[in-house]
């Protein structure tokens, strides 16, 4: 199993999520982060003070996947999150030793398959 962590643009969350679903990955944990890399800073003005914002809003998507899904996940993210402009983000792959599903105590691969309650469909 691997833990894949992707840092992406906030406006691409929706596309990335859909691409991952199509690749069969639906267990995700997201968080808001601030990134610093090659992007230009934003300038703001407040009453005679010029201010520079160096960090950009990004979203971190974390997912635990079993080995066969790693490449599919990376490809799905790359395709759906790419804009071609500096600041598209990075993907990190780390080893993962154990996964436990809290609800059942199941471990590892069997802990990774989500059990669905009934779902709703978005407008397309």
């Amino acid at each position, binding site marked *: 199993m691997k833990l894949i962590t992707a840092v992406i643009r906030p*406006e691409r*969350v*929706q596309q990335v999520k859909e691409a991952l679903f199509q690749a069969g990955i639906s267990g995700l944990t997201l968080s808001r982060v601030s990134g610093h890399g090659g992007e230009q800073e934003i300038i703001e003005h407040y009453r005679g003070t010029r201010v520079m914002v160096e960090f950009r809003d990004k979203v971190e998507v974390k997912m635990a996947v079993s080995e066969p899904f790693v490449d599919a996940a990376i490809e799905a993210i790359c395709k759906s999150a790419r804009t071609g402009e500096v600041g598209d983000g990075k993907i990190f792959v780390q080893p993962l030793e154990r996964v436990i599903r809290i609800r059942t105590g199941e471990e590892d691969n069997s802990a990774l398959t989500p059990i669905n309650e009934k779902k709703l469909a978005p407008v397309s």
Partner: protein
Amino acid sequence: MLLTPPLLRRSLPLLTLLGAGAALAQAAKAPAFNTGDTAWMIVAAALVLFMTPGLAFFYGGLTRSQSVLNTMMMSFVSIGIVLVLWMLGGYSIAFAPGNAFFGNLSAAGFNGLDNAVNGTIPSYVFAAFQAMFAVIALALISGAVVERMRFGAFLLFGGLWSLLIYSPLAHMVWGGGWLGVRGALDFAGGTVIHIAAGVSALVAAFVLGPRIGHGRTAHVPHNVPFVLLGAAILWFGWIGFNAGSALGANQSAALAFMTTCVATAAAMLTWLVWESVRGGKPTAVGAATGLVVGLVAITPACGFVSPWASLVVGIAGATASFWVVQFKQSLRADDALDVFACHGVAGIVGALLTGALAWTTGQGKPVGEQLLIQTEAVLFTVVFCGVGSFILLKLVGLVTALRVTPGQEISGIDISSHSEQGYAESESGLSAPVMIGGD
């Protein structure tokens, strides 16, 4: 024209207090329509209308963010439901001629108010001014039941409470009923609004039961600036509430304005001093609470006491409320936002001090006698509203569940009762909502 003596009762201070020269002469003859009084009373009514949204922010800031909308909605919907009911019947029950306990329905639908005059102001303005009092009385109660009461149940209870408890009580004190006839002094509604709401709130908290985790988990205000905003709007609107109860732009209004300012300032400082003395720090929530408590305490007294006496009222009201709040943990009821401690307790202190201090402006009966009457009015109100609210809640409980489910309560009542959240992350963010239809 509906100008019957009971309707004039609330303008009595006007007649007894009027000041210098020309004004007195004018008051001697029968009061006539006066644009100045009308101007003031329209504004006063608008100010009291503005108080209820102020209360929504005062209460809304004190709850957690997942319940902010439900908390605010109870105030807003109080405006909606009470204004409509006031027209249909509430006004008539309160101010139409009737017996010692309630008015008849002769003024239902504001029948007979068109082009009529009440004292020196149009009857519609009087009716609208009084409507706003009915609105906020109900909204005040909501503070005790936040984060757990079903919205529909609150609506049903609120409508009944307004018609069956508030309107009769207003009739008894201001509309010609027995408390007014006995000589109970209540300039702007300490008994009718604050004691009534405070006691009903306590009963409602008791009947509903405590919030999940009450006494173990802390409930911390999610937005203290909102609490301050609400308190500020309340103070601003309360000028209309108190000085407007003179029913004209006269010396009585001037006195009520001044005492309201002094008592409120003193109460705010008193609360901060008590906080510091108890080893804590003076807090913003404390300042907001203290000022509201001061406003409550001076409400029944504002047109009857001198500025010096109002200082006493403010200090005493804040002190009493402060100490009740400190020991609220020992109360069995989870009165979430301290409606009883703030409105009930300060209202009672204010009502009694009105009796004790009315001599400072030469009004009321001899102190002892007046105090007795005030005590009687307070006790009656406590029992009437306490028992009445209890019965109403039990009745409503037969028709519909009073509380949301524990799961709904834990995840926040806003989602389950209103399908919406108070604050959204930016749409491109994490919890990015996905559109599923134009409904």
